[in-house]
């Protein structure tokens, strides 16, 4: 436990540290790929909200799009990239470490402190 107390605070990726974006990445990680409509239904959010978050994830290359022309109707499918999957794994690891710190009784705002730390690095 003393090792945990003396280790630096885990850093969290600010792009993923947003509930909707985390959920998008987690959903794509579990499902493999999904269309805009499927994600909208799963996350229960508006088109604009989902679109904005998907743009950010796409710009960061965490998510990429693939167009399919199978059948009469063209579809845009969102797929999690390798770097997106790695980022999610890293994020979950860091969150778990924070959970352990939290369990030791440290009285600090975990997420804010860790985010600030990341930004200061």
């Amino acid at each position: 436990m003393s090792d945990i107390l003396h280790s630096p605070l885990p850093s969290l990726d600010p792009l993923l540290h947003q509930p909707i974006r985390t959920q998008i990445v987690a959903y794509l990680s579990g499902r493999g790929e999904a269309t805009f409509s499927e994600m909208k239904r799963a996350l229960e959010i508006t088109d604009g909200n989902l679109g904005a978050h998907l743009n950010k994830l796409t710009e960061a290359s965490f998510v990429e799009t693939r167009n399919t022309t199978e059948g009469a109707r063209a579809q845009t499918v969102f797929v999690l990239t390798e770097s997106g999957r790695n980022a999610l794994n890293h994020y979950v690891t860091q969150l778990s470490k924070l959970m352990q710190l939290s369990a030791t009784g440290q009285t600090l705002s975990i997420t804010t402190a860790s985010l600030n730390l990341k930004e200061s690095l």
Partner: protein
Amino acid sequence: MTETHQQLQSIHAMLAAGHRSVHLEKHSLLLIGGVGGLIAAMTEYLITADYFPDTTQQAVALLVWLSFWLGGMAIVDFKLTHRARQQRDETLPFAQAQMTRAWWMLLSMGTLGSFAMFFYGGGGMIYALWIVLLGLGIYLFGLFSRLLVEWIGLATILLGVTGLAAGLPYGATHWLAASCFAIGMPLAGWLSARYGNTGLTGRVLALLCWITLVVAPPLLITQAKWAAASGPDTSPLSLKAPGLRQGEKVLRLAPDTPIALRLDLESPVLTADPQATLLMKLTSPLDVVLVDGKPDGRYRIAEGEWHAIGEGVLDLMIDRVTPQLENDTPAVRAHAIFGKKFIQKEAP
């Protein structure tokens, strides 16, 4: 609960939602259920020795019949599924594509198994086998879908295994298989859509409802068939009684009456005279219904309940064959069981 904990829980929830994104389309449930039910209900009446006297002919006819319906259903289902997914702007999850392959593999195994039964025996358990295969298919889908579907898959497997272990007559497993397909599949989809995400109590009640609605019809049909298999309300006549061969009559065969077993042997290594006879003797009085002098399949033993021969209560099973040399004469001793299910059913 901390924000971190909530965040982790939300990630796990979305991962699970992604993993458990498999669901069978309504049309798939209706197609598989309808076609499976039709096959289970009708095959018995169409692929018969009357239409296909030769065993090989019968086996091939069954293979063609099953392949036509199941293959056709697979193609139609594939096209409808892709169309429905596109219309809803959805993709087919990778897990579902793999599951569909596994599903069709199971049904192909069932088809080939049914074909092979003609040559290797075991036909008495064919419907139980199909029920287990159907259950396995539903269970596999359930692993990536809602928990209730998984439970229904397990319940279907248990129905098949329990029916076989409990010595359910062939006729009853036949209707149970038809019910598992035709009622069980659409009902599983309907219950899963409405109660798949409810709490434990809701899911348990939904499962109990599914079991009741699937098991009740075959039991009622079987009971009705047994009830319908009543003999004519006339006094039993002996073999030499006048008027025995006119109209509907009951023939009573007394104990010690000789009964000839004639064997239509089909074998690449042996041949037998179709008139060859194995003489047996009755141990209990047997009443047989004759219509214009011909047995119509209804019988009762020792004035018990009436049965129809198609119920599968009385069947002959050769379970062991031993080659022997008796006084320098080669012989084959076959151990057979006749009417075991009758003994199980009627024994006090």
